[in-house]
C-alpha cells in the first residue's frame, strides 16, 4: 500500500516533469558577428531562419561594428557575458582558440553528417586550427589579386597584365600619365592590418612567413614599391589609403592598376567607366612561388557555452546553407565543393574565376595568439622602408627582432 502510494507519487512527479519539458527545454543561443549592422548579412539572416524553424531554440542575434567585435567579445568573456557562437576575422581567431576560449569541435565535425572537413581550402582551415585541433569553421573567404584598366593598357601598348613585380614597375612607368592625373598603380600600405594584408604575401612568396620576414625577396619588392612612389608611378598616399579608397582611385580612372580583392567587384562593375580585368598577384620571379592574402571570417563556438549541442546544431545549419552565401550575400565560400553560379556579368564572372584560382595560394596570417603585434611590426617596417627612413633590409631586420621576441615566449 505504502509502496504503491509512493510509486504513484513518483509517477505523478515524472509525468509533471515530462509535461513541463517543452517549456523548460527552450534553449537560448547568443550569436555575435559584424553582419546585419549595415545591411542583411549571413549571420543575422541564418540566425533568424534557424530561430523560426526550431521551437526548442531561441537565437538572439547581435550585430557589432567590425572594429569593435574583438574588444566586445574580450570584455564579455572576462565578465561571463560571452555569446555562444561568434564570428571573427580570421587573423583574430587564434587569440581566442589558442587560449582555450573556443570549444574544441574536432570530434563533432568528424561525426557530423553535414560538415565535411576535407572540402575546405587549406588556408582558411589552418586559421581555425590550433595545435592540431579544430576550434571553428571558415565562414567565407577572400583574397587579393591585381586589377588592371584594359583601356589604359591598350593606350600604352600593353596587352597582358604583369606577371612579376619587376614587370609591374616597367608597366607602371609606361602607364603613368601626370598630365591626366593617372598613376601607374595603386595599392594599400596603410598603417594597419590592411598594410600587412597586402605585404605579407610578398614575404611568403620569398620563402618567409610571419616568423621570418627579413628575406632578400621581400626587401627587393619593397625597393620596387619604394621606387614606384619615388618616381611618381604610385601616389605617396598609398601609405594612408585603405584598400577601398585606394581602389576608388582606380575606379575613377586615376590609376591603371590596383591591388585589391573580390569585395571590390560590384562597385567596380557599377562605377568604372572602362574595360577592366583581374590577374593573379604577381610573383617575385617569372614562375616563382605564388602566395596571396587570406581574408574572410570564421565561425566558432565559445568554450563557456552552456549548450554546446544546440550551438553545434546551429553551426551545422550555417554550413548547410553555404551554397547561398555567394548568390545572396556576395561572399565566396571557403570550400571547393560549391560551384559559383554564373552571374551573366562577363567582367564579374571572369574576375571571380581568377580569385577562385588565387584562393588556392592564399595563406593565413598566423595563426598566432599575438598576431596583431606581429602585424604591427610588419606594417611599421613596410612604412619605414617606403618613406625612406630606413633601407628595406634594415627595416625588415628591425621587424624581425621584434617578431623574434614574440615567438620566443
Amino acid at each position, binding site marked *: 500500500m505504502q509502496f504503491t502510494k509512493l510509486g504513484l507519487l513518483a509517477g505523478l512527479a515524472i509525468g509533471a516533469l515530462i509535461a513541463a519539458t517543452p517549456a523548460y527545454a527552450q534553449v537560448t543561443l547568443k550569436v555575435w558577428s559584424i553582419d546585419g549592422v549595415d545591411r542583411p548579412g549571413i549571420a543575422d539572416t541564418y540566425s533568424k531562419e534557424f530561430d523560426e524553424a526550431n521551437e526548442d531554440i531561441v537565437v538572439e542575434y547581435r550585430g557589432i561594428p567590425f572594429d569593435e567585435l574583438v574588444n566586445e567579445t574580450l570584455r564579455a568573456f572576462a565578465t561571463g557575458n560571452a555569446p555562444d557562437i561568434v564570428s571573427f576575422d580570421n587573423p583574430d581567431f587564434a587569440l581566442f582558440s589558442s587560449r582555450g576560449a573556443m570549444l574544441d569541435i574536432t570530434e563533432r565535425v568528424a561525426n557530423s553528417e553535414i560538415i565535411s572537413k576535407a572540402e575546405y581550402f587549406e588556408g582558411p582551415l589552418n586559421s581555425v586550427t590550433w595545435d592540431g585541433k579544430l576550434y571553428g569553421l571558415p565562414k567565407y573567404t577572400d583574397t587579393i589579386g591585381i586589377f588592371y584598366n584594359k583601356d589604359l593598357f591598350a593606350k600604352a601598348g600593353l596587352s597582358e597584365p604583369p606577371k612579376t613585380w619587376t614587370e609591374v614597375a616597367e608597366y607602371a612607368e609606361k602607364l603613368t600619365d601626370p598630365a591626366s592625373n593617372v598613376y601607374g598603380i595603386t595599392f594599400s600600405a596603410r598603417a594597419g592590418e590592411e598594410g600587412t594584408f597586402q605585404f605579407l604575401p610578398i614575404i611568403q612568396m620569398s620563402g618567409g612567413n610571419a616568423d621570418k620576414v627579413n628575406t632578400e625577396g621581400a626587401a627587393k619588392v619593397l625597393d620596387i614599391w619604394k621606387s614606384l612612389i619615388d618616381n611618381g608611378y604610385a601616389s605617396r598616399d598609398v601609405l594612408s589609403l585603405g584598400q577601398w579608397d585606394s581602389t576608388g582611385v582606380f575606379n575613377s580612372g586615376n590609376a591603371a592598376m590596383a591591388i585589391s580583392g573580390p569585395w571590390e567587384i560590384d562597385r567596380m562593375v557599377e562605377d568604372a567607366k572602362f574595360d577592366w580585368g583581374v590577374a593573379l598577384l604577381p610573383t617575385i620571379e617569372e614562375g616563382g612561388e605564388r602566395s596571396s592574402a587570406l581574408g574572410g571570417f570564421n565561425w566558432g563556438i565559445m568554450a563557456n557555452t552552456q549548450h554546446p549541442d544546440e550551438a553545434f546544431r546551429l553551426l551545422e545549419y550555417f554550413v548547410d546553407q553555404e551554397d547561398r552565401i555567394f548568390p545572396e550575400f556576395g561572399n565566396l565560400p571557403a570550400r571547393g565543393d560549391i560551384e559559383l553560379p554564373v552571374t551573366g556579368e562577363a567582367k564579374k564572372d571572369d574576375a571571380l574565376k581568377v580569385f577562385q584560382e588565387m584562393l588556392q595560394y592564399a595563406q593565413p596570417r598566423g595563426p598566432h595568439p599575438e598576431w596583431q603585434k606581429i602585424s604591427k611590426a610588419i606594417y*611599421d617596417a613596410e612604412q619605414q622602408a617606403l618613406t625612406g627612413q630606413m633601407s628595406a633590409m634594415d627595416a625588415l631586420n628591425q621587424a624581425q627582432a621584434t617578431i623574434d621576441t614574440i615567438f620566443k615566449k
Partner: protein
Amino acid sequence: MSRFFSGLRDGIGFDIILVGAALLFLLALAGAPLVYNVLMSFQQVDMFTLGSLFRPFVGFANYIAVVQQPEFWLVTRNTLIFVFGSMTGQFVLGFALALFFAQNFPGASTIRGLFLVSWVMPGLVVGAIWSWILAGDFGVLNVILKSLGLIQNNVFWKSDPNFSIWAVIIANIWLGLAFNMLLLSVGLAAIPRDLYEAAELDGANAFQRFWTITLPMMRSTIGAVLSLGLIGTLQQFDLFPALTEGGPANTSNVAGYWSWQLSFQLYDFAKGATVSVMMFLLVLFASVIYVRSTRHEVRG
C-alpha cells in the same frame, strides 16, 4: 542635532554636501577606473583576468617594456609636438577671433555663433571630412594652395613622414577652435569697459592696453582654457584612426592613440594602461598650472 541641521543649512555643511556629492560621483565613475588602470600597469593581464582586480604583480616590467619599444621616443616627441602645436594654434587663433568678434559690428554675435559648429560635429565625421580635404591627390586643400600659388607640387599631408603629425594638428586646431574662442570671448566680455576708457585717456595704445589690461584680467580664463585644452588635446582620439592610424611608421602616433592601439588593437592591456598612466604626468602638470592660475583671481 539641530545644530547639525542648521549647519547643513547655514554653515560649512552646506558647502560640504554640494562638493561632496559631485566628488563622490566622480570618484566612483572616474576615480575607480583610474585606480584600475594604475593597478593594471603593474600587473600581468590577459583576457581571462580582464574582469578582476587581482592579477600577478610584475613591478615596473610593463614600464620598462614600454620604454624599450622602438617607437617610444618617437611617440613621445610626437605627443609633445601635437600638444604644443595644437594648443598654440587653437589658442592664438581662438584669441584672435575672440578679439575680432569683440568689436562692435553688425552680425558679430551671429557669425561668432557659426564658429561653434565644430563643437557639435561627431569626431568620426570630422576625421572623415578632413581625411578627404587633406588627401594628396584628390584633396581639396592642395587644389586651393596650388591655385593660390603657395605650393608647386601636391603635399602628401597624411603620408609624408614630415607632415603627417601636422595633418592631425591642422584638423585638431579646427576642432578645438570653437572651444577656445568661446571661453576667451566670455573672459573678454567680463572685463569692465571703463578700464579701457581710462587707459585710452592716459594715452595707452592698443597693444599696451592689451598687454596691461586684457591679459592680466584674463589670467584665470586663460588658465582654464589652457588646462582644459591640454586635457582635451591629450584625449583627442577620433582624428587619428580617420586620418593616419598613427602612420606612416608611427610618425603621427601620439600617447593617447598609442595607448588605445596597445590595448584594443594589439590586446596588450597592461602596456596600454601603462602608457595612459604615463600621460597622467602631463595632465598633472596641466592641473598645477590651472590651480596656480586661480590663485590670482579677483572675485567680481
